[in-house]
């Protein structure tokens, strides 16, 4: 309960205080509160683990009047993952985004934006109310856009604006859906919507909301804003954008399709979502193959990795939710979300280290850096293993669960995409690894503190551990899993 309040409010409070603090005090305060939030997230996860979902009715009013906040296993897991990523990013950023290195604007601007993003994330994870989710995801987008624009260069601004356009369009579509839903049912609480009297506008509402969220989740073909945005932002920001931001809008999709209106889900619609996901896996992989810059490769790999998430819809959604394999598929997708978050953050942080070391992330310039920065190279390789879905990483567990249920459901084409996507990932991640391992170091690398190098290594190791100890998160994710998925329709 209190932990829940902390994770929700502390980021916001810190964000505001940072604005007032003198430059010297900024980083220590942020790190301290980050540590607090990580602890709170852990406490919350423990509470959920032991006592089941934690609910908080704001102001003691139950819905529809009040706003309910609820931390189920999924939310707890995502909060935990986000807290770890945020903490790591903060640690890395204190080295990377020092004013003397990147200028005052970025050095100052990053911290409040990061904390704002964090608050928005946790809000989205916890909200049970469609309008709350709207506000949360909107704040999220604004913070994200601002982070993209942070460097202030022309293409960064252009990327930020393109991102903004997609994000706003998405929000508006979502908002339209919310309005329709409210018009039909007079409530926006997910729990109440689940037991609503079906109305004929529901289909349109869900369609609008879904399309809007797809734009924010950067599912093919609405991914086009993502690569320039993530590549243009400073590395720690990219880590947040790639690892966490899409997960929030994806979570809203899950809430809608599995909790609020599971009865609407029709096979054809589910199929379309998964098909787009499959295309994203291939398309993102193919485009990652032709990029010359490390950050672009990683960004396109995000496009591909997000595609896997959408296999959840036909496998666990709609009529599938009643089937034995639904649990596997649902958990698999969530494992993918978690492990991708950790691994992708690690990758962007390593990219940041390389940029800090040699001032570029072109593959040609990265040659031989494995020798000068062994820890970082190792971290990148570990993260790559997760993204390729090789055992014993979290990515493997995710792939395994998804593939198994795909076969069990008789929908083996998804399994084919999973396998092929893995090979594709190996192909596009091989290029940077090979460059790093190449013989001669091209450019003299500036020294990088070992503590900074250790940060991505820890994240990558966590993404591997997620697979080795997959039993615990697996059970955590089951807690408070959307009821329909267990009872069937």
């Amino acid at each position, binding site marked *: 309960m209190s932990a829940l309040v902390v994770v929700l409010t502390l980021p916001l409070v810190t964000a505001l205080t940072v604005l007032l603090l003198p430059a010297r005090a900024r980083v220590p305060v942020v790190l301290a509160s980050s540590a607090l939030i990580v602890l709170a997230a852990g406490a919350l996860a423990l509470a959920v683990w032991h006592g089941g979902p934690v609910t908080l009715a704001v102001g003691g009013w139950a819905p529809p009047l009040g706003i309910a906040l609820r931390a189920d296993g999924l939310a707890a897991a995502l909060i935990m993952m986000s807290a770890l990523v945020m903490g790591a990013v903060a640690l890395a950023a204190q080295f990377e985004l020092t004013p003397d290195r990147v200028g005052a604007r970025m050095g100052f601007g990053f911290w409040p934006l990061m904390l704002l993003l964090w608050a928005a994330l946790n809000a989205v994870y916890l909200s049970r109310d469609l309008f709350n989710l709207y506000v949360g995801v909107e704040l999220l987008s604004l913070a994200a856009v601002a982070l993209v624009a942070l460097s202030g260069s022309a293409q960064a601004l252009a990327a930020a604006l393109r991102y903004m356009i*997609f994000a706003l369009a998405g929000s508006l*579509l979502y908002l339209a859906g919310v309005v329709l839903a409210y018009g039909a049912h007079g409530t926006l609480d997910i729990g109440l919507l689940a037991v609503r009297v079906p109305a004929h506008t529901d289909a349109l509402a869900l*369609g609008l909301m879904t399309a809007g969220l*797809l734009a924010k989740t950067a599912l093919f073909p*609405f991914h086009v804003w993502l690569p320039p945005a993530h590549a243009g932002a400073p590395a720690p920001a990219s880590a947040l954008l790639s690892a966490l931001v899409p997960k929030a809008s994806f979570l809203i999709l899950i809430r809608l399709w599995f909790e609020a209106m599971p009865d*609407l889900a029709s096979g*054809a619609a589910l199929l379309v979502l998964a098909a787009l996901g499959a295309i994203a896996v291939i398309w993102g992989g193919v485009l990652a*193959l032709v990029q010359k810059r490390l950050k672009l490769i990683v960004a396109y790999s995000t496009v591909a990795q997000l595609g896997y998430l959408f296999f959840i819809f036909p496998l666990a959604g709609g009529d599938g939710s009643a089937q034995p394999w639904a649990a596997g598929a649902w958990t698999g997708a969530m494992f993918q979300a978690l492990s991708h978050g950790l691994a992708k953050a690690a990758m962007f942080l390593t990219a940041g280290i390389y940029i800090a070391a040699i001032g570029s992330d072109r593959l040609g310039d990265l040659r031989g850096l494995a020798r000068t920065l062994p820890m970082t190279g190792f971290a990148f390789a570990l993260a790559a293993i997760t993204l390729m879905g090789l055992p014993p990483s979290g990515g493997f567990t995710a792939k395994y669960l998804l593939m198994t249920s795909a076969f069990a459901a008789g929908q083996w084409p998804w399994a084919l995409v999973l396998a092929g996507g893995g090979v594709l990932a190996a192909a596009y991640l091989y290029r940077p690894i090979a460059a790093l391992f190449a013989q001669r170091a091209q450019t003299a690398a500036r020294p990088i503190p070992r503590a900074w190098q250790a940060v991505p290594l820890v994240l990558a190791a966590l993404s591997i551990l997620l697979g080795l100890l997959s039993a615990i998160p697996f059970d955590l994710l089951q807690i408070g899993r959307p009821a329909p998925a267990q009872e069937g329709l």
Partner: protein
Amino acid sequence: MTALYSGSLMPLAVLVWPLLLGLVPLVPRWREGALRVLPLAPLPALAFAAAGASGTTVLPDLLLGVHLAAVPGGALLLGMTALVWTVAGVHAALALKSGVQAGNFVGFWCLTLAGNLGVFLAGDVVTFYLAFAAVSLAAWFLVVHERTQKALAAGKLYITLAVLGEAALLIGLMIGAAAAEDLQITSVRAALPDAPLGQVGLAALIVGFGIKAGMVPLHLWLPVAHPAAPVPGSAVLSGAIVKAGLIGMVLFLPDGSGWGTMLIVAGLTGGFWAALWGVTQRNPKAVLAYSTVSQMGLMLMLAGAGSGGVAYYALHHGLAKAALFLCVGVMAAAATPRQRSATLVVAAAVALSVAGLPLTGGALAKLGGKDGLPAALALALTLSGVTTTLVLGWFLMRLDQHAAKPAAKPAGPHLWRGVFSGAALLAGLALALPWVLWAGATGLPAGYPVRGANVFAGLWPVLAGLCAVAVIKRWALPAQPPGDVLALFQGLRGWAAFPAWPGGQRLRHARSIRRPALRALLHAKAAEDHMRRWPRAGVMLIVAALVLAGLLGVAN
């Protein structure tokens, strides 16, 4: 864990002793005098044979379970082999240069000897195969010992045929063992004829043994290898080693099968044709090689006919042929005309014995072989005396003109006396030993060899042969290269040497598919930029919303 061994250790000792001596050259200090151990190597075998070659050793843990016991007629063959190797060893110790080369020679000499003795002692197919492999492959080093171009070329041919023979043998033995579900030679022999693939197996075995035994047309290696090998080497090759093939035939071929007849035909062909072809050779050792082919042909004929006298015949031939080969060395070492003529006398005596001059060991061997033989074959055996006389007569002529070989040490009376006495000893044994063993080996009455008919049957072919010799002494046949049929195979050389194929095919192929792939990737990049334009994306967004709504709507 069963007992390490059971039975008497004598047969094992026979094999292990030479192997131990073979290690002597590994000790640098002993390497210089290593050649001196050669005569000692066969002594246990000699003792074992003299004692009647009784006793078996079983070593369950070794290989796939080793059984050692003298094969039928083993005592004779073992004894002969041991004698030949001993005397040849003395010859080698005296005649060969010492040094590193000699060290190798000693090692492989002993290995070959062990294998040669092993084939007469093996009780199970694996041990037999091992012994056979040892005797045929290790002999490679004896052939190429002198490292001259000629020797190396001969070695190539020898090893090629030997390996082919090994492969064929392996097939045959495997089929047999699978059929018998047991590794004992006796049970394999019994199981082979009616096994599913029995005939294939037998054919493979005949090829394997035939190569070793110089069965026409698989005899190619003999006339090439013998001239190349050093004298003692050829002596053991022709005297003892070829008998390994013969004993294989005897051990594995079932009686009264079609293969027997085939063996008789091949044997007779070889018996006569090879002898005649030998007359076209110039090198005395090549001539002897062809005579060996012809004698082996006769023995194969006996084996095919299932005559009991094979071992007895082989005993004499082994001793005699070894003696003849040694004579070549003796002649090379001979300095004075007296020595040369003395050598010729010994050689002539042995030659006549081989030709079957009555009252010589050779005559007894023939009589022993004829015993119980169909009349036609017996006649053939008699007739072979003519050709044998012819070829060996020719050999004596060639030997007379034979010059000293460069490989030999500077000839000295001491050396000559040593090697001469060796050759003479073998010759004596060849002439006399059959008498000693007559009763025991053939079971015929002691007076049988001196009966008029037998004497006549032995005498006239020799006389006829001598006339023929007189003829070719006047009109010598045109010389032919050794290895007759080999000429045919020269053409196949080019094929046999695989030309290195163009390696990078796969790469070039890959490059050809890589270009379109790259183009496709670039297209994808262009499409991406295209999609990035906002208005299109916006339209797609709205379309997506409506499509989803539609899909959801129609379902509900």
